[in-house]
């Protein structure tokens, strides 16, 4: 394979059925070369998986195709109705939409105050028309739902939909515009395995009607299961392509990172005494995701407890109780056998609980503050950090220098805004902050969501390390593979109830998650 060459040969020679061709696209953001001379083709009815580490440039490439970003160089050609390639005016989402390109964004691009129907039809009608033909729109969407199996309530404000429903609305948006080429950027990052499988089966069905798909994912399982062909980006360059039939995990990983990723190996270990006890804990939340109904839970030292479940079944409430953000309406919380009288984040930190939040950008860091400051944000009372109310800036900087080294947090330096770190490095920053205090208990809520394989493996290794040291870990994840790989014991959360799974049986846990009697 001609790594990074400007004329990297495509594995599949152009055929009449080519519906999309990207020619030598390049894009810089200041000093960052996000894409460097990337060329790709896509055939009719084909599913192409685009792989690469975090920051490899996948989203950027797709954003240029769709017109959000203007390339510094290169061109895009899209086949018209007759299958003839026409060049696409760049930098105009509207032109891309008109040419039949639909894009589902990594981060939802939905207005939450209007309903799904309006989100879907947004931009498809003349703005200055005095009337809308909602009935026609509705029947068209219902037709698409019928054919694709992508069900979503159309009349509810999107703000009240679940993530899975929102994801489907995103796809419906693209299909409504008669997309012949569908770009999906990490569509399953927030879906359960079942939801993901359903989604891909629906999409697969549509490819048989001539839809062509590019999807981006960090989950090799679904890449191998559903794609026809794989293209890999590294540091903004295309470094290879292969037919999925010829690919295996190892080969792909090597192509992505240029080396083998270490497998995380868990060794059996005898658990110690309990570090966290929840007894009959209830939380009265406003929605299902914020509600717990009298759960009992015990985590012991040297133990990773995996909490499996479809998102929105009370994981947030559970995590909020353990991290001190929500006060239980009933029940008891004990850390190391001592009742936490007034739960608060500060009390939990003091009790020795380290928290890795679900939403690392929103809850994990203060983006506008420096890396060093974020490293100490949980221990502002510590005399190492402050004396008499004044910050000890040298100590704070030294601490950060040491931790960025130890935890391999890469970025523009400890004095720079933490916002400038990539998602993976933000997660490492949080890990450093948490592990450095040798917590008795670690709450890891979706710790690898959106991370590439290398970064995800690093998180797993750190969690196992903590367990070895004697910490207890609560691992909440929608990625069943991750739980199966790391957890000593598994519980399933459903409708605000926690149930012991009793085994590592994938099938059985899947059924419990779906609410069927095991």
């Amino acid at each position, binding site marked *: 394979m001609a790594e990074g060459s400007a004329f990297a040969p495509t594995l599949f020679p152009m055929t009449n059925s080519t519906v999309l061709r990207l020619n030598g696209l390049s894009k810089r953001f200041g000093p960052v070369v996000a894409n460097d001379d990337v060329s790709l083709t896509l055939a009719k009815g084909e599913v192409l998986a685009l792989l690469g580490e975090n920051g490899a440039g996948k989203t950027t490439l797709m954003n240029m195709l769709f017109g959000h970003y203007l390339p510094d160089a290169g061109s895009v050609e899209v086949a018209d109705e007759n299958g003839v390639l026409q060049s696409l005016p760049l930098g*105009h989402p509207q032109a891309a*939409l008109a040419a039949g390109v639909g894009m589902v964004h990594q981060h939802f691009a939905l*207005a*939450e105050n209007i309903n799904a129907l309006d*989100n879907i039809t*947004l*931009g498809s009608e003349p*703005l200055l028309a005095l*009337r809308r033909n909602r009935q026609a729109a509705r029947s068209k969407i219902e037709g698409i739902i019928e054919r694709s199996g992508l069900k979503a309530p159309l009349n509810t404000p999107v703000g009240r939909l679940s993530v899975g429903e929102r994801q489907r609305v995103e796809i419906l948006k693209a299909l409504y515009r008669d997309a012949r080429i569908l770009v999906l950027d990490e569509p399953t990052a927030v879906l359960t395995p079942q939801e993901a499988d359903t989604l891909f089966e629906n999409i697969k069905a549509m490819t048989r009607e001539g839809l062509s798909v590019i999807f981006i994912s960090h989950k090799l399982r679904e890449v191998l299961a559903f794609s026809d062909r794989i293209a890999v980006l590294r540091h903004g360059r295309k470094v290879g392509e292969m037919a999925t039939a010829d690919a295996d995990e190892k080969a792909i990983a090597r192509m992505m990172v240029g080396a083998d990723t270490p497998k995380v190996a868990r060794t059996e270990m005898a658990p110690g005494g309990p570090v966290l006890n929840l007894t009959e804990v209830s939380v009265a939340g406003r929605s299902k995701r914020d509600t717990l109904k009298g759960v009992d839970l015990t985590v012991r030292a040297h133990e990773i407890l995996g909490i499996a479940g479809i998102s929105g079944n009370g994981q947030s409430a559970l995590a909020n109780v353990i991290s001190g953000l929500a006060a239980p309406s009933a029940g008891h919380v004990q850390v190391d056998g001592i009742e936490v009288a007034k739960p608060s984040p500060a009390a939990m930190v003091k009790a020795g609980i380290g928290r890795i939040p679900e939403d690392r950008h929103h809850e994990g860091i203060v983006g506008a503050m420096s890396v060093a400051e974020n490293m100490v944000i949980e221990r502002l009372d510590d005399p190492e950090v402050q004396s008499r109310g004044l910050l000890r800036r040298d100590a704070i900087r030294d601490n950060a220098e040491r931790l960025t080294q130890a935890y391999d947090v890469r970025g523009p330096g400890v004095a720079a805004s933490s916002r400038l770190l990539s998602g993976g490095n933000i997660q490492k920053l949080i890990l450093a902050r948490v592990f450095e205090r040798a917590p008795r208990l670690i709450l890891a809520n979706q710790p690898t969501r959106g991370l590439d394989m290398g970064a995800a493996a690093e998180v797993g290794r750190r969690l196992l390390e903590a367990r070895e040291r004697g910490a207890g870990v609560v691992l909440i994840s929608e990625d069943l593979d991750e739980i199966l790989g790391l957890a000593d014991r598994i519980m399933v959360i459903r409708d605000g109830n926690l149930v012991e799974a009793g085994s590592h049986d994938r099938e059985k846990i899947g059924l419990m998650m779906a609410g069927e009697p095991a």
Partner: protein
Amino acid sequence: MMDLLNILLSESFWAASLRIATPLIFGVLGALICERAGILNLGIEGIFVVGAMCGWMAVWLGAGLWGGVLAAAAAGALFGLLHAVLTVPLGLSQHVSGLGITLFATSVSYFTYRTALPDVSSPPRIEPFRALDIPLLSDLPFLGPVLFQQTALTWLALLMVALVWYVMNRTALGVAIQAVGDNPDSVDAQGLSVYGLRIGAIVAGSALMALGGAFLTMSAFDAFFFGMVNGRGWVCIALVIFASWRPGKALFGALLFGAFDALQVRLQTEMGALVPGQVFLMAPYILSIIALVIAARSADYPRALLTPWFKGQR
């Protein structure tokens, strides 16, 4: 002494409420459109002044009443455009830009007025809008005086409530404006122009605000005075939240405020000897805060309000 009930039952009280509410209706609708699109427009107080001055001056120069209305709207739109350019493509602080526009619009109006009319001891008058006096309707028992003896501008305000409601809820444009105020990316991803929608909304909203000012000089009164806007614009900023950004509730809020004000002058004339007059002057503001506290829980803000958006940046 007329008691409270008598006041509340009198048609002149309700007519006064609607009259007092009219400039607020224009203002709240204007602020509502801007904020629905995600932009706070604190220029409103100054845009009221510009509307009052330009509307009046156009009529005084012979443009006719509707010419004055157009002139006011155009002037409002112009200052709205300035606010839009500063806050949308340039993404500057909406607070500062707004306060800057208020200062700018007010001082431009005053300076222009004074430079054009350096030597007036009594401001020149125009022939203002008169009550419509629609033949049969005006003679209806209660509704007649309350509704059908208002001026054309009050009717225009009521019409605008319906129009804004219709546009916001029944047209593609309205949906797009709501979407751009909630999540600009949603609009951008569907091929619509975030900048275009926001700028358009601010310009249109500001034109409406200016009509609120024009009402003061062309209907409620017939001349322009320095300081005559007297905080009415700011009140609209409060009312728009009270109204949860809904045109119908905006009308209700403006009427409520107008009713408090109308009640206030009536009670003050009755009870002035017992309670300091200021207690009555404060009442509408205090009640607005109370109403806000009650409404706040359910208020769902346009999520993107105050957050600038740049194309191709994250």
